[in-house]
Every structure is written in structure tokens, then in C-alpha cells.
């Protein structure tokens, strides 16, 4: 019996000759907002579709609430809200009908926030889905997902068609369910979103998890961007360990600094009469790019 809400162990999936996933491991605890980021085609959707028992993994174990995602799918889904990456709806049904249908298919019968969410997302439920834009189809899925009670929310790039205002509404929804102690699994390639919402994250690339941890842990492992002004000579930085991409102008220097060499560099700067020091941790974007280039 696993304590984890989501756990995946060595999940592998091939589509013919395409290796979509190789040995994916994931552990998401209850109450976490977990980010899952990677470029297009990295395997995010495949991972999620395996989690939902829509695809069958070639090998490895995947569990939700300690139950097997494939054989116990129907049970599990009563406690899962899912927003797929490509929301394809039935052109002949209205948005409101689809929202109701989804809630009924989940069989929990509860529809607490429907009206409130429709207002918040500024959504017209009386039109046929065939006439909705991508953003509006996404809203259908989001309203259906957040209007019902679930223990875990699995969201596959849920904001890719939304405008910035609606993204804010979305983030509000996520924070609200998180505050109620629910688990959120959010796949995205929009880094600022993950950065703002998630406590922990995994980065996936070409079907492999390349990094996992909290944002802070990840930032620790990498370099800060440092800007310094000093009265003395900063040329000595060139010889110091842990300094990269150095650029010098008179009395100013700009470089990347390995976190574990901070002390040495600080000592040097103190001897050169530093007047101003700005150190910025890497953004998720930079983290991501560093994995991407690797």
C-alpha cells in the first residue's frame, strides 16, 4: 500500500518504433501541486494517458491512490478530474450539456460550483460545441473538472488556449482546490505557470525524466546570475573557480556562478571593494533550457 497519490515506476511505452516513454518514475504525494514540464513531444500526454488507463504501459507499474491505473480505472476515476490536452467535444451538443454530461459520467453527482465557474470563466453554455474556439472548449473541460469534487486533478496543458485573464481564473481554481488539500498534477510547457503554482516538479525530455525536485532544490544545483560593481579590479574573477560566462566593463562584471563556489568568490569580491551586488536565481526557463541543451 503506497502512501503516494500518484506513483509510477519504470513506466515504458513504445508506439511502434517511437520510444514515447522510457523508465518513467514519478511520486506525487497528497496535497501537492505537482508540475510536469517538457517540450512538445516529450511524453507528457502519453504519461497522463497511461495514468488514466487509456493507454496500457508496456512495462512498469502505475498507481493512483495505491490502485492499479489499468485494472481499477473505473473506481479510480470517481476521484479524478481530468482535463485532456486536446479538448475535442461533440459538435452537436451545447457546452452546458457537455458539462452536465461529464459530471454525470463521473457518477459522483455533485456539481457545486457550476454556476459560479461559468460566470468566472465568462462562458456561454448555450452554444453548440461546434462553434466554440479552442479556448472555449478548454473552458468546458475546466468547468467540468473543477465543478465536481475530486481528490486528484490531472491537467494536461490546460491553459494552452486561454487568454491571460482566464489563466488567472485558472490559477485561482488550482489554488482553491489545493487549499482544500487536493492533489494537482499539472503538465505544461508554460514555465511561468508552473513556477507560480507548483511546489514540486519533474522535467521530462524525450520520454525520460531528467530532473525531479522542488524548484529551490533545482535552483541550488545550478548557477545564479551575478551582477557586481566594485572600486577595485575585477579582472581576477577570470581565474576563480565556479565563474562562467564572465563579461567585464570598467568597474562592473556580469557572470554565472556555481552555487557551491559562492564563498570563494565572495571573499575575492570583498578584497576588491564591491559596492553593489545583485544575484538572481535561475528562472525555471533557464533551468529548463539547461536541461534542454544538455
Amino acid at each position, binding site marked *: 500500500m503506497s502512501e503516494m497519490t500518484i506513483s509510477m515506476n519504470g513506466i515504458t511505452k513504445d508506439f511502434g518504433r517511437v520510444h514515447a516513454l522510457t523508465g518513467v518514475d514519478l511520486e506525487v504525494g497528497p496535497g501537492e501541486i505537482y508540475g510536469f514540464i517538457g517540450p512538445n513531444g516529450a511524453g507528457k500526454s502519453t504519461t497522463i494517458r497511461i495514468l*488514466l488507463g487509456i*493507454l*496500457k504501459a508496456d512495462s512498469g507499474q502505475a498507481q493512483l491512490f495505491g490502485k492499479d491505473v489499468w485494472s481499477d480505472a473505473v473506481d479510480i476515476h470517481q476521484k479524478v478530474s481530468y482535463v485532456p490536452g486536446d*479538448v*475535442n467535444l461533440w459538435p452537436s451538443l451545447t457546452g452546458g*450539456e457537455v458539462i*452536465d454530461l461529464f459530471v454525470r*459520467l463521473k*457518477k459522483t453527482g455533485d456539481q457545486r460550483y457550476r454556476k459560479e465557474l461559468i460566470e468566472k470563466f465568462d462562458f456561454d453554455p448555450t452554444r453548440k460545441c461546434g462553434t466554440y474556439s479552442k479556448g472555449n472548449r478548454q473552458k468546458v473541460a475546466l468547468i467540468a473538472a473543477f465543478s465536481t469534487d475530486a481528490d486528484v486533478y490531472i491537467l494536461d496543458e490546460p491553459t494552452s488556449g486561454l487568454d491571460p485573464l482566464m489563466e488567472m481564473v485558472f490559477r485561482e481554481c488550482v489554488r482553491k482546490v489545493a487549499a482544500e488539500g487536493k492533489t494537482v498534477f499539472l503538465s505544461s510547457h508554460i514555465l511561468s505557470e508552473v513556477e507560480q503554482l507548483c511546489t514540486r516538479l519533474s522535467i521530462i525530455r524525450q520520454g525520460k525524466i531528467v530532473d525531479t525536485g522542488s524548484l529551490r532544490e533545482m535552483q541550488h544545483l545550478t548557477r545564479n546570475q551575478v551582477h557586481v560593481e566594485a572600486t577595485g579590479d575585477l579582472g581576477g574573477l577570470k581565474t576563480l573557480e565556479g565563474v562562467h560566462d564572465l563579461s567585464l566593463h570598467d568597474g562592473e562584471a556580469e557572470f554565472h556562478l556555481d552555487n557551491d563556489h559562492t564563498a570563494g568568490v565572495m571573499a575575492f569580491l570583498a578584497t576588491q571593494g564591491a559596492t553593489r551586488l545583485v544575484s538572481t536565481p535561475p528562472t525555471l526557463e533557464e533551468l529548463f533550457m539547461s536541461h534542454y541543451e544538455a
Partner: protein
Amino acid sequence: MATTSLGSFSGWTQLLRMIQRRDRWVMPAWIIGVTMFCAGFVPAMPSIAGSSDEMGILGELMKNPAMVAMCGLIYGSEVTLSIIYSQMMMVWSALVVAVMNILIVIRHTRTDEDEGRLEVIRALPTGRLANLGAVSVLMVYINVVVFLACGFFMGVFNVESFTVRGCLLYSAALATCGLFFAALTMVIVQIAHSSREAMGISTGLLGFFYILRAYGDVSSETLAVISPLGLIQRTYCFYEDRLMPVVILVSLSLVLMGLGFALSSLRDLGQGLLPNLGRARAHAPRTLSGEWGLTWRLTRSTILAWSATVFISAAAYGSVMGEMEDFVMSNPLYQQMMGIGANEKDITGPVVTMLVLIMGIIGTIPVLTTVFKLRSEEVQGRLDYVLGKSVSRWRLFIGYAGLAVIVSAVMLVLTAAGFWVVIQSVMTEPVSTPLIAKVAFNYFPALFAFGGLGLFLVGYAKKYTWVGWTYLVVSFLMTYMGSMMGLPRWAERLTPFGLLQRWPSEPFSWWPWIGLMVAGIVLGVLGALGFRRRDILT
């Protein structure tokens, strides 16, 4: 008020050239297809009814109110091949031409608009009416080509009684009917909110005009003339050759096009002039709940449409039973086709069998579409969503399978009911009810087995659903044409419909009946097992 000057049209020639380039394969395909349909059967006419005896009987057959309703008017002082052709083909050809016009107009107006292509064009130095202007010219051009091609092909075979004058008038009537629907669609795309809605309204109106004509041709001349589909038959081609209906339709088309331009300059891109009708449903009705409710909602319109088709066709066939028997008795070709010995007297049984067989094959179409709907939902990526909810694959599959079984039964019941209702009132010696019911019962396993095959393909060989359709077409050709082409009976038995005994000409046997039921069940179960195990993939 928007000003409508010639400047509004500037740039239409470039737009027309662009449309022609985009559709350089589609247009010729449409025109060739339509011409084939409208004129292609002319050279075959003499073989359908060559002798004047046969023609007389065929004429009688066609005078039947059900045939008039289905096809159209029969007129003239004597029956000729060309007049029979005009009755059998004109209305249906006009439908085909109208559909072509509707589809092309919507494609180049509202679809372009919905997908934002028209916005790009409006941003270029083109007038606001340029696109509609280009489409109008295009539609005139297409219909003129159809007129020339169709007239030429009808006349060129030099078939007896197909006069040059008649052929030209006939194709002119079809082409102007096409132009009328093009112009009507140009108005509709202005008032509808989307291309889907425009399509619904246009085809709905076409259907309405067809029914108006059907009703009018049988009982009210005025109603028939109000429908363009009825009006074109009032050219009385090959008989009186009147030009008036063509003139009326051309004038109406011009008026409608003018209206289209006026409305187009009144409204904004992407908007419709209709008030938002019938779209107020913010909540799902009770019936739309659960996976089975969804399945029914997604398939019901197709199933209902086929049910109506099967019932009406069966009734239409039923209404001509008497004449049909006379016709078959006088035509050795048909006797051979239906496996009737030359000296046989009572041919009611074989005729009923043949009709049920044909209706059964037609009824298999909705069985297959129902089953394959499961796959098409998967391909459209919508199954992901349903299975992401608390829905078991097993129940989802059973829903489609069960519905297919019901559809199989319903199609045969409607066939029997359609025959029965009409035969009771038409035939002097009514066909016994048990006979019809038993014939329908006899063919149930064939539809059932096709359903099973479809389920198997969906579960186990999802890329090969075309196999089901191909097998159905083969079944049709084998049973319908088999004996005519001299195929031995055992070859026919390779298809479900042929495997079953042709009761009552052949003695009834349970073996093929039960065999097909078992095959259907086994295939269905295998399909379910496959579906439960496999990935859901587009």
C-alpha cells in the same frame, strides 16, 4: 446604410482565380460525378424496358402514387423511354446538383469565414463583396458547364425518343435548379451563425422542397410547383418542352443573389443575422446521462433517418407489389435474377424475399454505422474524455453492441411493417402476414452477424473497418446480381445474406440461421475482449 458601389467588388477576379486554383481537382470531380449521375443511365435505358409491352408495364408501375411521390411525375399521352427517364431520374438528379451547389457555396463563403481565411482576404485591397461576387460568378460558370456536359451526354447516344431539344431543356432545368440552390445558400450563409448551421438550414430546405414536391405531385399541383424540384418537372421534357420553369428559376436566382449581396453588406464578418434559435440549452436533458445515454444521443439521428428510409422504401415497394409481379412475370431477366423458374406461377414469395433481402442489406448500413461510431469517437479523440471519467470500457462497448442488435431487429421489423401496411390496402389478394414476418425473421442473423463483424473489427483490427463495408457491398452484388451473372448458389453462400435459405423458394433451415447467430456472438465477444485490452488511439 452601407454603400454598395462597384468598388465593393474590386479584386473579385483574383479571388475567383484563387478559388479555381484551390479547387482545381475538386471542381472537375464534382462536374464529372454529377454529369455521370444525371446522364449516365441514358444509354442503359433500352435494356431496362425495350419492348413496348415492357414499357407499358413499367409505365403502369411508375404511375403508382408511391412511385410518383418517391421519384416524380409521369406525364405525356404515351409512355416513352425518355419520359420514364425523366420521371425516374430528374428529381434525384436535381437533388444531386443542388447538394453540389450547396456544398461549394458554403465551402467558399461561410467555411472560409469561420476559419478566419476571409478575414485575411478582407485585409487585402479587396472590396467587401468581392468574395461573394467571385462565388456568384463561379456558381454560374459551374452550372453552365453542368448544363453543357449533361445535355451533350444525354443526346450523344442517340437513344430512341431522347430528342435534342428535350435533352437540352432537361439539363437546363437541372442546371437552373442548381443555380437556384446556390443563390439560396448565398442568402442562408448570411443569416446563419456558422457553416454547420448554414449546412443544416440549406439541406433542411432541400429536404422540405422534396417533401413538398412529393406531396404536391400526388395531390396538389400548386404545392408541387412551389417546390423548385417540382417546378423543373413542369418543363415536360420530351413531351411539351416548356421553357417557362427555367426562366422562372433563373429570375428567382438573380433576386436571391441580390438579396445575398444586400445582406452581406449589412452584417459583420463572423456574425449571423438570425436570432439565436434553439440554442438556449444550458443544461443537459435527463436522457443525456451515462455512457449509454451519450451513445444514443450520438447515434439517434442517423438511426431515426435510416428507420424512416427503410420504412418508406418498404412501403413504396409494397405499394408496387402487384405491378412488380406482373413486370417480373413478363421479364425473363428479372425472373433469372430472383431465381424464379420459367413456369412458376406463384411468385409472391420470391418477390417478397427479394424485397426483404434488399431492405435487409440497406438496413445493415445503420447497424455498421452504429458499431463504427465507437471507433470514430475514438479517432476524433473524444473517447479519451469519456474513459477518463468513471466509465468502464466493457459497459461502453456493450452499449454500442446492444444498440446494434436493436437496430438490426428494428430495421427488419420496419421493413415488414412497411410492406404489410401498404400491401393490405393495395393488393387484391393480400400477402399473408406470417409470410412477411417469417421472411424478415429469416434474415435477422445476417444483420446480426454483420454487427458482430463490425464489433470484432473495432476491438481487434481498428484500422480495418473498411473491411466491413466492403463485405457488405460484396454481399449486395453477390445476392442481387449473382444469379444474373451466372454465379453458382454456393458462391452466394459466402456472404451472410446468401448463406441463409431463400425461404419460401428454398426450404427453411435452422443450420445457417443458428450458425450466423453464433458467429455474430463469437465475433462480438472477441471484439469486446480486444477493446478492453488495447490502447485508445486516434
